[in-house]
């Protein structure tokens, strides 16, 4: 074990530039994945906030008797998906419009007849907020005779969902491309080390060292480079995150960074990249020395 570690560490001293190059490539590949990952998790976080506010609004025809509405409200409240139901009268709708839509306050003050319909607002329980369920519940509400129209923010929820998926996908594709480059570069540096040590390796084989014993230092070298690259990528990601958050501020002040398990995942991925690079190289070149 000591021999293994010593040999692996020696290669960093023998070829510091190449080692730095491998580490940097891994770091950049993971940095790219990481940046897109950050965007994706922040989008998801934002979506979660929005989803909590998912509401189905059923506009009620003018002149519907209060009793019908009360009965319907009770029916809707009994749906298994529904968290709470509230009835907003025409007057309440106007009052709310006056306070919330400040820009139109004057317009609403001057009008004689209330143009706003009464509505039933339905909030869904957690776990029932994806668009398919929302649509289902909306359809059921629509079937009440006095319901004029049902609105829910399906389209833009889907669009945000798509955006998140696209962001994740783009990050993955670019990250994978970088990862391939990283594997190649690690492979090349390990190959150079193998060539440098060809004599030593041939002697190891002659005296009966097992293949895994010979591979060990190279694999450890690759894994170490991956580990360092992973750390470096996290540092870069954090620097980028802080820079963006602190310079933009405003709505971006609440941006979140990776959770510990994400960071571990990135580092593990780095180690795997390093191992893959060295395995490819060792497998191909060790047979020939």
């Amino acid at each position, binding site marked *: 074990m000591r021999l293994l570690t010593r040999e692996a560490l020696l290669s960093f001293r023998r070829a510091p530039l190449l080692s730095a190059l491998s580490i940097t490539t891994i770091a950049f590949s993971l940095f790219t994945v990481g940046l897109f990952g950050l965007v994706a998790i922040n989008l998801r976080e934002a979506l979660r906030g929005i989803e909590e506010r998912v509401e189905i609004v059923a506009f009620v025809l003018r002149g519907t008797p209060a009793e019908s509405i009360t009965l319907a409200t009770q029916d809707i409240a009994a749906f298994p998906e529904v968290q709470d139901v509230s009835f907003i009268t025409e007057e309440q709708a106007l009052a709310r419009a006056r306070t919330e839509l400040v820009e139109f306050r004057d317009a609403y003050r001057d009008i004689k007849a209330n143009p706003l319909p009464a509505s039933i607002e339905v909030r869904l329980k957690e776990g029932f907020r994806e668009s398919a369920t929302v649509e289902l519940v909306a359809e059921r509400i629509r079937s009440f005779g006095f319901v004029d129209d049902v609105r829910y923010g399906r389209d833009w929820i889907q669009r945000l969902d798509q955006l998140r998926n696209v962001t994740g996908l783009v990050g993955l594709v670019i990250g994978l491309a970088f990862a391939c480059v990283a594997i190649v570069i690690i492979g090349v540096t390990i190959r150079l080390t193998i060539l440098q040590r060809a004599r030593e390796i041939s*002697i*190891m084989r002659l005296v009966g*060292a*097992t293949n895994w014993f010979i591979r060990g230092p190279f694999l450890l070298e690759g894994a170490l480079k991956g580990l360092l690259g992973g750390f470096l990528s996290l540092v870069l990601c954090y620097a980028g995150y802080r820079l963006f958050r602190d310079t933009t501020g405003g709505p971006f002040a609440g941006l979140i960074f990776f959770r510990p398990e994400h960071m571990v995942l990135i580092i593990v991925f780095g180690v795997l990249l390093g191992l893959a690079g060295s395995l490819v190289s060792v497998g191909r070149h060790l047979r020939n020395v």
Partner: protein
Amino acid sequence: MIRFSHVYKSYPNGALALKDISFKVGKGEFVFLTGHSGAGKSTIMKLLFAEQQPTSGEVRVSGHNVSELGKDDVPKLRRRLGIVFQDFRLLEDRTAAENVAFALEVIGARRDTIAARVTRVLTQVGLPAKARAYPRELSGGEQQRIAIARALVNDPAIIIADEPTGNLDERATRGVFQLLRDINAMGTVVVMATHDLDIVRQAPYRTIELRDGSVVYDTAVDETEETEVS
């Protein structure tokens, strides 16, 4: 200890390196393999330590069938062998003692036993005083002795020496050859490939002569038929 049965070896380019080679080497033997360059000496050596596999026929070395050795079995075979080359194959950036210890380290020998074993074999080859010397500070003969010490340190059953005196002057050649004889006298089988007929004549050992990949002469052909192969 060693048995070749109807061994053929051809290379991908079609060249036939060995043709129907059969011989046995018993316990405690010292065998010369002689012949001109290209006669097949080195190919036999490579088959002995499983660097190559026979195209057909069977090669058995110290209980292992070389033709059937898996990748993981090759190291097991080599730990039973000590291999010595014409060019010594020492690591330049390690001292004599470190070169010998290297052979123990890479097979995972216990660390606390390494120093004592290295000292023992360095004494056996007559170079205990050169333990801290680097290969470049040693003469050719001394470097070959270190290489032999490295081959010996695992207590091999067989020493395979491919032209061990090829790079040495006359005096060093005599010294190294005597060392191999001493090792053989203690019971280790020695197979030595050489084209130095002076050495071959010096000692009353069995000689297998090769020409164009075939055995043309074996001084002990009758005895080997009766030798028990282990």
